[in-house]
């Protein structure tokens, strides 16, 4: 088995045992990046020099016995909306094409303290707005399972990089499904933690009240171990919470006996692809066979989640993104006359169409006379959705659902119909509105060979419930990785079939 097929924890163990060094691991990952990037394009920036230097430093610390964690020396990638000191951070936007932060995001710092080696920054939908990674200003990322298809988004670069073995794990961020949906499209595992679990300090905000950083990896064990390192109360983030425990790995037990699992009927209805439905229901059956109590139930208000989400997230984004004005950093238009012309032209030229669409939407719903009708109403809807989930978690430990109504669409297919793209977030968005934790684990592939993701949703601060259920389910399956020997051939295969 090649190094790239190892999970993060497996590699960490090998480094610890001295069977491979951190430098060798980094070099191998960088080699693979060089080979695969022309076909996948998961990265915006690859930091070869920094990664090798850092790997050497980490290796020394490991040998000196000062770094003993399970992830020490493991090469990883960071989504390009998290600040990394001295390393370009673009949010895949032209407006930040040259932005080099003066500080590192707290979540990334936490991983670095545990010996993470950053290979580079991964591609994403511009400012995390999108579900396909196609809104990136620096080109699309392709799905390693079939390069004619999107990897999902917005953390598409992170998920594609993990799937293709271009890193051993990655950080993503999830505002409306941006970790879970691309994880499902790329056949990898990703967790969106409870809001407030991971510090947002240094995460370039999209929708501040919904954004949360989380891990993307090859399996549930990796995700639990990474989350354990990532999480922690941060005095620099007022919305981060002090949890009674940051232990997640003790939930890695193959036992779901008596676990109460609810499946929302409304998540299985119209719009759900039949193959996805079949795979998800099959996963429910597996968990039932393992001793869980599985029931179908009625989760109300799901229809209102998408409009509420787009109002809240866009409102916050319209304000969050106003700092990108060409004054202090990033892109400034070369020709302008006076301040307003500089603002207008820098922003018109610096932002892509999807970002502009959401800034306009957000500015509209916050404007005087509309605030109550849109923004306040959306906040009330959010509170009601949270109540619905509270009620559900009175009866169930875990809610089981698809991560996405479909498998990965072909490149260019979604952007033609933004409304349809927004509807694709239907199963993931409520989780952000309610601040809940959710995980996506692979649960099969469709007839075209594209991965399907199973979503498990837990109550606030109950990551351990979803980790336990996901782990038990994962134990019944073999881990699959796309064959990357001739990545571009996949598309050919499909062309021939259709």
């Amino acid at each position, binding site marked *: 088995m090649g190094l790239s097929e190892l999970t993060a924890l497996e590699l960490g163990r090998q480094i610890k045992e001295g069977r491979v060094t951190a430098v060798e691991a980094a070099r191998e990952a960088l080699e693979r990046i060089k080979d695969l990037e022309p076909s996948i394009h998961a990265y915006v920036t690859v930091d070869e020099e920094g990664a090798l230097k850092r790997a050497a430093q980490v290796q020394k610390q490991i040998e000196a016995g000062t770094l003993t964690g399970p992830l020490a020396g493991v090469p990883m990638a960071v989504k390009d909306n*998290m*600040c990394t000191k001295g390393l370009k*951070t673009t*949010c895949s936007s032209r407006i*930040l094409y040259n*932005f080099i*932060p*003066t*500080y590192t*995001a707290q979540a990334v710092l936490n991983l670095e303290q545990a010996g993470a080696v950053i290979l580079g920054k991964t591609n994403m939908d511009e400012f995390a707005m999108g579900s396909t990674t196609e809104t990136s200003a620096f080109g699309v990322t392709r799905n390693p399972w079939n390069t004619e298809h999107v990897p999902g988004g917005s953390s598409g670069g992170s998920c594609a990089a993990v799937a293709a073995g271009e890193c051993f794990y990655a950080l993503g961020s999830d505002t409306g499904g941006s970790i879970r949906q691309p994880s499902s499209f790329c056949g990898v595992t990703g967790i969106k933690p409870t809001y407030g679990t991971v510090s*947002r*300090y*240094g*995460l*370039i*905000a999209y*929708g*501040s*009240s919904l954004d949360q950083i989380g891990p993307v990896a090859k399996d549930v064990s990796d995700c639990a171990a990474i989350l354990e390192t990532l999480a922690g109360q941060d*005095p*620099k*983030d*007022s*919305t981060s919470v002090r949890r009674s425990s940051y232990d997640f790995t003790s939930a890695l037990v193959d036992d779901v006996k008596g676990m109460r699992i609810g499946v929302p009927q409304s998540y299985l209805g119209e719009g759900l692809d039949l193959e996805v439905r079949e795979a998800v229901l099959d996963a429910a059956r597996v968990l039932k066979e393992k001793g869980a109590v599985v029931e179908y139930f009625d989760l109300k208000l799901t229809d209102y989640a998408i409009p509420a989400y787009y109002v809240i997230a866009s*409102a*916050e984004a*319209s*304000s969050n993104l*106003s*700092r*990108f*004005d060409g*004054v*202090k*950093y990033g892109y400034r238009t070369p020709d302008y006359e006076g*301040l307003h012309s500089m*603002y207008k032209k820098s922003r018109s030229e610096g932002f892509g169409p999807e970002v502009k669409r959401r800034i306009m939407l957000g*500015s509209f719903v*916050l*404007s*005087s006379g509309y*605030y109550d009708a849109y*923004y306040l109403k959306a906040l009330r809807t959010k509170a009601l959705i949270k109540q619905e989930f509270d009620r559900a978690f009175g009866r169930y430990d875990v809610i089981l659902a698809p991560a996405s109504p479909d498998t990965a669409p072909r490149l260019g297919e979604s952007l033609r119909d933004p409304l349809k793209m927004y509807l694709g977030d239907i199963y993931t968005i409520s989780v952000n509105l309610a601040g809940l934790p959710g995980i996506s684990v692979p649960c099969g592939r469709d007839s075209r060979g594209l991965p399907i993701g199973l979503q498990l949703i837990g109550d606030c601060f109950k990551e351990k419930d979803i980790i336990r259920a996901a782990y038990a389910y994962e134990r019944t399956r073999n881990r699959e990785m796309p064959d990357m020997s001739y990545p571009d051939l996949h598309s050919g295969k499909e062309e021939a079939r259709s």
Partner: protein
Amino acid sequence: MSRQYETVIGLEVHVELATKTKIFCSCPTAFGGAPNTHTCPVCTGMPGSLPVLNKQVVEYALTVGLAANCQINQYCRFDRKNYFYPDNPQNYQISQLYLPICRDGWVEIETVSGGKKRVGIHEIHMEEDAGKLIHDEWEDCSLVDYNRSGVPLIEIVSEPDMRNAEEVIAYLEKLRLIIQYLGASDCKLQEGSMRADVNLSVREAGALELGTRTEMKNLNSFKAIARAIEGERKRQIELLEEGKRVVQETRRWDDNKESSKAMRSKEDAQDYRYFPDPDLVPLVISDEWIEAVKARQPELHTEKIIRYMEEYGLPRYDAGLITSSKHMAGLFEETVRLCGRPKEVSNWLMVEAMRLIKEHEMDADHIRFSPVNLAALIRMVEQGDINRTVAKTVFEEIFDKDVEPEAFVEEKGLKVVNDEGALRSTIERVLAANPQSVADYHGGKERAMGYLVGQTMRAMKGKADPAMVNQIVKELLSC
């Protein structure tokens, strides 16, 4: 003017709080410093940075709110005020719109007629200051200094309860005294740590509805405020008299030209798209916190005046004047503690110190001499070591250089000459040299004696005890 008009005035006062660090980060608030040195990712609006509320700001806002008899919103929040301007690094200001920390308070002012009047406080809210723009004419570019960005402010919004400039000044003085006594700010109009915008409208006397108001900005002194109020009142009345209407707008006062110019009207007012800042959690102020702030509340201006009258027996006027500066009141209390004689201490401060303050065009807060030296001076006068004339000279030295009076008097040889023999012979010489005055005195001109005493003092270079001189002159004249 055929009709009678009433002026209606409300104030928006911004006060820079005296915290050591900024409102949402730990950068220093200290004035000065090279541009962009008191900055960090938070106060320069770097991507990904997040605000964390400085508790001391809340504490100061609470003390001011409680002193101004406000209701405290125990569940309050911060909102974003969105507008594009380069001095505002995030292009939104974190402020409070929907749930400000304090509401519905009042302060009491004295009116011109000597009566008392309450001015209502509509609300007090916390917010951050912006940076400073510097327009470089030479290079034809603009630069931004973010040192001031994130310095904490409170904005105190009054009800439209004032009717003339005197009331406005009395209200501002009252606020300044309250806030200075609380230690929440130094409240200097000239330096910008206190800024006032004046909302003014006029209406026909007896009318119930308010007229259309304007907002006046750029008022940097009490005098400018008084002039701006008068100017705007006249301008609005003239418009109405001509049958025109007042436009709701923001105007900028030019104190040199003594006139104002429209900046922007309500029609092109910006929509700030306020909404609760999702980066800050709601602020919950417990009963215990409020009680703790109340318990720490220092003695305020009005309470001090009453105590000075009761405890030290000072007249109302003296007590008012001494307490008009917290620093001066502190100096007074400390001096009295050292040497007693409150009336004497108060006289020195009210007469001599005030005179010098005026002469030097300085602020009472900048008096730098030590109460120990003033107390020593008072003791020396009391013991007859120096006379009052010398004492005034010594006081000036204390005021300017904080000299120790004993050493200074010793060094300059200013001690009163109590040697009766020497004094007597000097007076004899003076009388001999002024036969006309002696004759005048004997002829019934009492005033002549004053002249002779004065001549003696001059001969003694002021070092004689005037009472003794008086007595000896009288004695020698009558023999």
